[in-house]
């Protein structure tokens, strides 16, 4: 086998794996696994609402910011 192909395959797979790892680490760090029930239950509530809420929180943070 050509060593170029071996190195390319290794490189690509490790790179993809690293992206997945970074994703998992980010999720752990931001507390997404802290609440196991929410993960399953909030699937029901997923939708436009959740996005609107997140935008609303950002807006309020600006609006109510104490001096």
């Amino acid at each position: 086998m050509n060593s170029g192909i071996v190195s390319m395959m290794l490189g690509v797979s490790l790179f993809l794996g690293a992206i997945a790892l970074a994703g998992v680490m980010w999720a752990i760090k931001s507390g997404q696994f802290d609440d196991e029930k929410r993960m399953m239950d909030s699937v029901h509530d997923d939708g436009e609402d959740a996005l609107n809420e997140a935008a609303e929180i950002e807006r309020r943070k600006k609006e109510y910011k104490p001096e």
Partner: protein
Amino acid sequence: MSKIECSHCHLDFDEEVMIKDEDGENTYFFCCTGCQGVFHLLSDSGLDGFYDKLGSKKLTAPTHTFEDSSSFDSKTFYEQFVKKNEDGFCEISLVIEGIHCAACVWLNEKALHKLKGVIDVHINYTNNKAKIVWADHIVKLSSIIEMIRSIGYNAFPYDPSIQEEKANKERKNYYLRIVVALFSSMNIMWIAIAQYAGYFSGMTQEIKNILNLAEWILATPVLFYSGWTFFRGAYFGIKNKIVNMDILVATGASLTYIYSIYITLNESGEAYFDSVSMIITFVLLGKFLEVLSKKSAADTLDIIGKHIPNEVNVLRNDNIETVPVHDVKVGDIVEIRPGEKAAIDGEVLEGEGYFDESSLSGESRPIYKKLDDKIISGTVCVDARFRYKAMKDFSSSTLSHLVSMLDSAMSKKPSIELLANKISGHFSTAILVLAFLTFLLWLGLDNGFDRSFMVGISVIVIACPCALALATPVATLIGLSLGGRRGILFKEAAQLETMAKAQLLILDKTGTITEGKPKVINSKEYQDVDKSLLLALCNSSLHPISQAISSYLKEEDIKPAELLTVTQVPSRGVTAVFNGKKVLGGNAEFMKEAGIEVDIKSKYSLFFFAVEDKLISYYELRDSPKEGIKELLEYCKKSKIEVVMLTGDHKESASAIAKEVAIDKFYADLSPEDKANFVLEHKNKVSIMVGDGVNDILALAHANIGISMGSGSDIAIDVSDVVLLNDSLVSLKEAFLISRRTFTLVKQNLAISLVYNLITIPLAMAGFIIPLIAAISMSISSLLVVGNSIRIKWKWQK
């Protein structure tokens, strides 16, 4: 009559009791105005989507009785619970009561989001804890709490103690490191397989270089990120001049790493990157298991603080005021109501009635208090309202004194050095010396630096303490889970080993050896007993003897009669009038005073029942020993554990019980401090204290292992290391069995890993080890240890 469902809480009620509510074309039914209010509130604010999410689940109906929420805006409350975050917003942690399901969480979040000034609400589905962020100049905390209450829930603040957060952070930190280590190790393994294959079938140096490079990239984060704790541990070890396992792991892994880099760059020989990541991953896993099963002493102290009343009612300017306990001065007049716990020591000025002192003295009978009697903080007022003069301020009162003593006891808790730690120190030193000697020897035999260095490294790699690191945590974790399933909660894994080494078992009497409650063991009826009369009489008194007779009669399903003019005679009995007849119930003295002759003698408590000066019946009661005490004592005798009984009770009752269950050594009339001192005097032995009350907490904290009964007081449970959930002495014996079995297997595991090293290290010193063998033998030894640990369960599975 048809049952109909309430539109809000979905509970079923008869149609006629429901509140009918017609709203346009829809008709709703409510079980109460509370539900109605919440329902309209929700539909008015567009939150009726809640009912779709709720489905057919049922709720508890909202209650109305809430205190004024304005106390939430007080300065002291803010100081205690409210934090400012970096944006300048206020933040509080609340526990929300009444959450049943995801829909409730959704509703709370939505409702609070609608409130102007609330920035963010996050409710944890699992533990119902909420974090709320709000702008304090727009909305006050009291309005937030009111909102939660108005939709049918209630909220309590809690202090997200720094300790709890710290522990979670540490756990998360380990988690991240393990994720990286596992990811890298697994990837290295499949690359390593290619290398092993190449080792036997041959491959070009070019391919080998690529594989080495990939392994190098993967091993780097494992060593420096995941393995960071070992470098830190090694640093502290060197600083304190102790050779610990961290030093062996850190030097072994980093030397191997450097050597492998050298091999990779030099394009000759075999790299050991797989061993680097495997050592770190295995040992890190072992450490993580330990962290998981650790409790922090500081957490316990937080909980104890909650048991102390923080406010008392004090008479000031003819008014009763509620003041913080620290503001009470000597000479202040304190008022205490039934059910309240005294926070301050003092002397009674006004009022007569019973005090429950069982938490301090272990005495199961309530004590009657009248003018000038002493009130001890920590005891509970049972049935009357008292006013008493404070004789001490809060900090020198009995209760807070006890807690501050507990503080120091907890921080000085003795611990036994674990066998694995003892071994690993010597082991690490031996390996490092052997590796160095091997290197020198090979160099001296003219093998060249490269070869000699590689052989030296292989000694360290093969001696990798993977199995050693896993030996204890895996076995104890299995022991813990086994105990947990049988109602024995070990709060920390290391306790299993300590318990297995126990030499002295100290038992409390009331509630531990005995049931803690008197029971009717014998009764004699001279005439037909009107049991409904007797039950009514006994129900009217809170005395344990009367209570015991009530519960004895209740087994027969009797309805109590209506009594008139019930009079309690302290430490004697009760009298009442029924149908114009005088009814009496009490002890022998009480009967004699009423002119009734009784000549019955018993070493147990007696209760007589008489109507119109005629003895109807009597009952013999005693606090009998629990089941399983005989087996426990036999077991202790067999395994050479000394047993001692300590009690705050009188000598007579202590010796009666001691004789009955055959305990040779006992000490009676002990105060909580005396018990603790007894434990301290026997420091040279590994001691186990078993107790259930507040009077045992100091002793529980001082002993190597404190064991409490699941029904014991909360403080005792918090302070102790092991909790017997079913209160049974059979469990106590089982706890001994499990701990000993676990410790045996820990020893076996250690032996396995040492034997493995005895075989492989000479091979490594002779230079026979190649990376493949190192990897395989490492895995096999770890698997052996894990497999052996599972055997703990065998005995109990039959």
